[in-house]
């Protein structure tokens, strides 16, 4: 039982990285990025290409990719997604859905439909044992990164001027403009940060397992479920939601190898019925 809990939590750490960017974008802009999973897969493939092209280690390759991801996210929000924002959520849903299709076809064209992975070297197989439980170093590292990312995001929101700006434009865009803020820029900064997390998640996913162009929608589903379970716009809530999802899936996998994903969806449904606002709704400073 202890091993199931541990493996579930470690899986949840990866799901948290899938979901934090989504939580950030929703928290600041009320924008649901339906291409989240595809961007993660795109990040994974770009990590594979970066490492192959530069000969860097996967860790260093990701460090190169992350600032570029910020720029890509910034530009996407500034020049595309900002024009979809408004009272009606439909334009942003349609545009990100379109992006999802474009990314999947781009990946099929460039990388083919074959699954690929990022060779992580010895760390991929490294593990240690506590009594009779074996813990992989890579899943543990991923969990640690997810925890750190959640802490840093929460600290950014709570204690920095940029975080105040994020919360202010989220609360009242017009009043924030009266303070001298330019929401278009603030939104672009938020998406830039979300894309740094997306690149990180993509790289780690490609190290953990193989990725294929059509994987995005399933990752979106996990990200979306984690955000909803935790409560829209709450980072600690997103982490808890992701951990619960990972845990529930792991329990399902143990009962029957085909039940893991289904168990996760079931738990999501139960939370939706009992507590539709999520466990920890809305980030507060």
């Amino acid at each position: 039982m202890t091993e199931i809990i541990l493996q579930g939590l470690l899986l949840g750490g990866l799901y948290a990285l899938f979901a934090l960017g989504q939580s950030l974008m929703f928290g600041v802009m009320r924008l649901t990025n339906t291409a989240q999973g595809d961007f993660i897969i795109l990040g994974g493939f770009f990590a594979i290409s970066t490492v192959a092209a530069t000969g860097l280690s996967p860790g260093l390759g990701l460090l190169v990719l992350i600032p570029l991801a910020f720029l890509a996210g910034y530009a996407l929000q500034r020049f595309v997604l900002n024009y979809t924002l408004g009272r009606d959520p439909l334009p942003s849903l349609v545009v990100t859905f379109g992006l999802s299709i474009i990314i999947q076809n781009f990946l099929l064209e460039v990388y083919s439909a074959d699954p690929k992975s990022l060779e992580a070297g010895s760390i991929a197989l490294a593990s240690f044992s506590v009594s009779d439980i074996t813990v992989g170093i890579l899943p543990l590292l991923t969990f640690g990164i997810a925890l750190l990312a959640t802490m840093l995001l929460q600290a950014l929101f709570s204690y920095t001027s940029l975080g105040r700006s994020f919360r202010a434009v989220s609360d009242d865009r017009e009043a924030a403009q009266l303070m001298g803020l330019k929401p278009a820029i603030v939104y672009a900064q938020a998406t830039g940060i979300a894309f740094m997390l997306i690149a990180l998640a993509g790289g780690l996913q490609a190290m953990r397992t193989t990725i294929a162009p059509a994987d995005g929608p399933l990752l979106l589903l996990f990200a979306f479920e984690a955000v909803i379970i935790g409560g829209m716009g709450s980072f600690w809530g997103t982490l808890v939601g992701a951990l619960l999802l990972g845990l529930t899936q792991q329990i399902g996998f143990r009962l029957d190898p085909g039940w893991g994903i289904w168990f996760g969806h079931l738990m999501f449904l139960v939370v939706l019925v009992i507590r539709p606002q999520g466990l920890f709704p809305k980030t507060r400073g």
Partner: protein
Amino acid sequence: MLRAQCITAAYGDAQALFGIDFSINAGEIVALIGANGAGKSTFLKTLTGLLPVRSGELEFEGQSLRHLDAGDIVKLGIAMVPEGRRLFPSLTVEENLLMGTLSGRKGSWDLSRVFTLFPILQEKRSMPSTSLSGGQQQMVAIGRALMSNPRLLLCDEISLGLAPVVIREIYAALPAIMEEGMSLLIVEQDVQLAMQASSRVVCLQEGLVSLEGKSSELSRDQISKAYFGI
């Protein structure tokens, strides 16, 4: 300081301002009065860049405001205390006040001076802004605007929904705010209060200036006629 000439503005197809001429000098307190829908708040929105000017000239200290957005205008020194206060609910009192510093303008207004003006805010600086009473929230809204060290402060209905004793307290703070040549434009439903607080009154009716004059010289009948158009 501020000069508006034949300003028109609209919400989509619905025109709200039909050619407003207005000016305010340095150190002056002007009250803008008028019935609901007369265009007072719309006029303030055009001054702050929240609503584009359709036609006419709008200048602040010699610079045209017509093609500037709200973020640029506050940097020039025009700050607004919006109707309904519009505090940021997820920010504490102190964080709300600090938002005023984003304009980047230097001046004598900082946290300590705002806390001297409204001591209760220092006690409640770490509390969520939504936990304050209406009057205290209005103090935060005024303090937040002052933190941008404006040259012109626009106050939109600052007495709305407040108890008379609180309104007196807030209006009593205006002389301290008016130091150092700052100008004040007050939009006020309470005509008597507006007359007392200002040196000049401008009355709007259906998007046009219907009356303008010194507060001390205008009669009740003149104001009634300009206010209601009867």
